[in-house]
């Protein structure tokens, strides 16, 4: 199984709220000086790919799009976790690109890599949460598409996946090649990169291309980001004091007054 995993590096979403700021010029989160991490669900996708490789063999290629100086750590971490090789598409514009633009570059790179059976992405990026890259890649590559999966098994020319849905789980069988987006599950909690694998990871091959190298072209008309604002909350919390019985009584009285119960 030849798997390409798309990894995005984002500003650590765990940063405290006071450290969160929007750059008015780019209308994106300020990245300079902030810790960057692999977007949460992308790491799950990598874990799923590595587990699949351990089960059925094959190769895992980590593919990332971003300013090369910023994303190379993510790539080395992915290699230390067990990816076989990596491709960096060096693109200073990447943090500004929306889903369709990103997908166009990634699809071109995947085509250039050749013969991927599976392309895995996170179900959404931790920053922009468009959830569009996997379905777009599927169309661009002429592949099957299933999103928000938690597990997969391979068959003859197919994969059978578990997809998280509103009312439970869908078991979906998809033809290969397929583009799958991965959500979270205990079984695919990403492994930690090991320090003992870092020197080995430094020796693994990393290709570096530009969007022009892979012949990427935007296909869909652009959408403009007009404004990104941080809402100010104005709620004032009334704290209900006393022992638990007194707190409970006070709460029930207030909820009754508001006709909520």
């Amino acid at each position: 199984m030849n798997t390409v995993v798309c990894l995005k590096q984002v500003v650590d979403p765990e940063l405290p709220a006071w450290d969160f700021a929007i750059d008015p010029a780019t209308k994106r989160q300020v990245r300079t000086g902030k810790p960057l991490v692999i977007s949460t669900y992308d790491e799950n996708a990598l874990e799923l790919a590595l587990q699949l490789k351990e089960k059925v063999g094959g190769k895992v290629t980590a593919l990332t799009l971003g300013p090369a100086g910023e994303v190379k750590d993510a790539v080395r971490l992915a290699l230390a976790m067990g990816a076989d090789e990596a491709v960096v598409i060096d693109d200073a514009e990447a943090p500004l690109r929306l889903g369709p633009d990103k997908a166009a570059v990634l699809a071109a790179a995947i085509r250039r890599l050749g013969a991927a059976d599976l392309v895995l992405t996170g179900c959404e990026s931790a920053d922009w949460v468009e959830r569009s890259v996997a379905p777009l890649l599927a169309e661009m590559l002429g592949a099957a598409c299933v999103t928000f999966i938690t597990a997969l098994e391979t068959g003859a020319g197919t994969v059978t996946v578990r997809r998280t849905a509103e009312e439970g789980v869908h078991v979906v069988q998809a033809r290969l090649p397929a583009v799958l987006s991965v959500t979270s599950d205990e079984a695919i909690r990403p492994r930690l990169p090991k320090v003992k694998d870092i020197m080995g990871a430094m020796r693994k091959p990393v290709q570096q291309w530009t969007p022009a190298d892979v012949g990427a072209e935007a296909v869909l008309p652009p959408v403009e980001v007009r404004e990104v604002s941080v809402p100010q909350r104005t709620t004032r919390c009334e704290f209900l004091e006393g022992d638990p019985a007194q707190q409970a009584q006070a709460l029930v009285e207030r909820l009754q007054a508001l006709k909520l119960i």
Partner: protein
Amino acid sequence: MYRAVDFRLSDEHRVVQAAAADFAAREILPLAADLDRSGGFPQEVIRKAAEAGLLAMTVPEAYGGAGLDAVAYVIAQEELARASAGVQTIITVNNSLVCEPILRFGSEAQKRTYLPALASGRSLGCYCLTEPASGSDAMSLRTSARADGEHWILNGTKIFVTNGVEADVCLVYARTGPEPGARGLSAFIVEKRVPGVRVGKIEHKLGIRCSSTAEIVFEDARVPKANLLGEVGQGGRIALATLDGGRLGIAAQAVGIARAALEAARDYARQRTQFGRPIADFQAIQWMLADMATRIDAARLLTLRAAWLRAQDRPHTREASMAKLFASETAMWATHKAVQIHGGYGYIQDYPVERYFRDAKITEIYEGTSEIQRLVIARHTIGTRT
């Protein structure tokens, strides 16, 4: 060609930092407060640390280590200590005080026998130097080793041995000749399971509580001749060379504790409201935080410099002592300020700063007290005087 000083971390050092920080966040931090309270040895954490390659970071990959340099080592130690100084103590002893001397002074056979086991966590190491009557004056130690056919027979008592309870491999210094001081000393790799080695009194400590500290007693312990580390009479040299590296680990530990204290104090100051505004708005608090940040950066830079020298195989005794002295006193000072910023909440166990405060103190004591560090630095500054 002239090269300007470059303060950026290299690619692999940044990746090591990220990997160590991930490990600390996931495997250590959630347990840190409980480990401190229970004082129980974190068996599972150490097993995972071994799996990650954290127990033998500077040992070459050929011997099962991570093949990294001293800079990578101190970067990782800071991240681990930021989560739990107790866990990091266990790890730094294995790295600096056991793997390193075997790597530097051991025979090929000793390296092949012990390093892969120490790296993989099959064995844990401890360092047996201090005795009841020899602390700062380490070279006056009295434990004896006498040759007997194919063995050395060891007799004596070592105290304050970190990992003493759980360790399998002890690096032991003993007197092999009549010469006084360092010249009569030799170093031995002693497997704790051999008859005549037992764990004595187990200490209860103020801080780094999840690491064990024990007395180890040698009573006619028979150690194979092959387990002499280096040559007869080389013990003093091995001890001093080892402590240079050990001090880097403690300096990094102190930086990690101090950073944890700063981050906790900063977060608290931002959210704690008094007189109608966050206390971070008050200059009294701001100055404390600014001084903490400045001293911590200075401590880290001293530590990185010493580590860089060590990685280049350049002399670094003076620089390691400076790093250890300044970082440990910074840790004590910064944790003290962090408790102060927390007020009453800093004095109770609901917040982590009281743990940082207790953990910080040991860094001024072990692997050479601040007084010994000043002595070393003074000798390098003034020149040796009789």
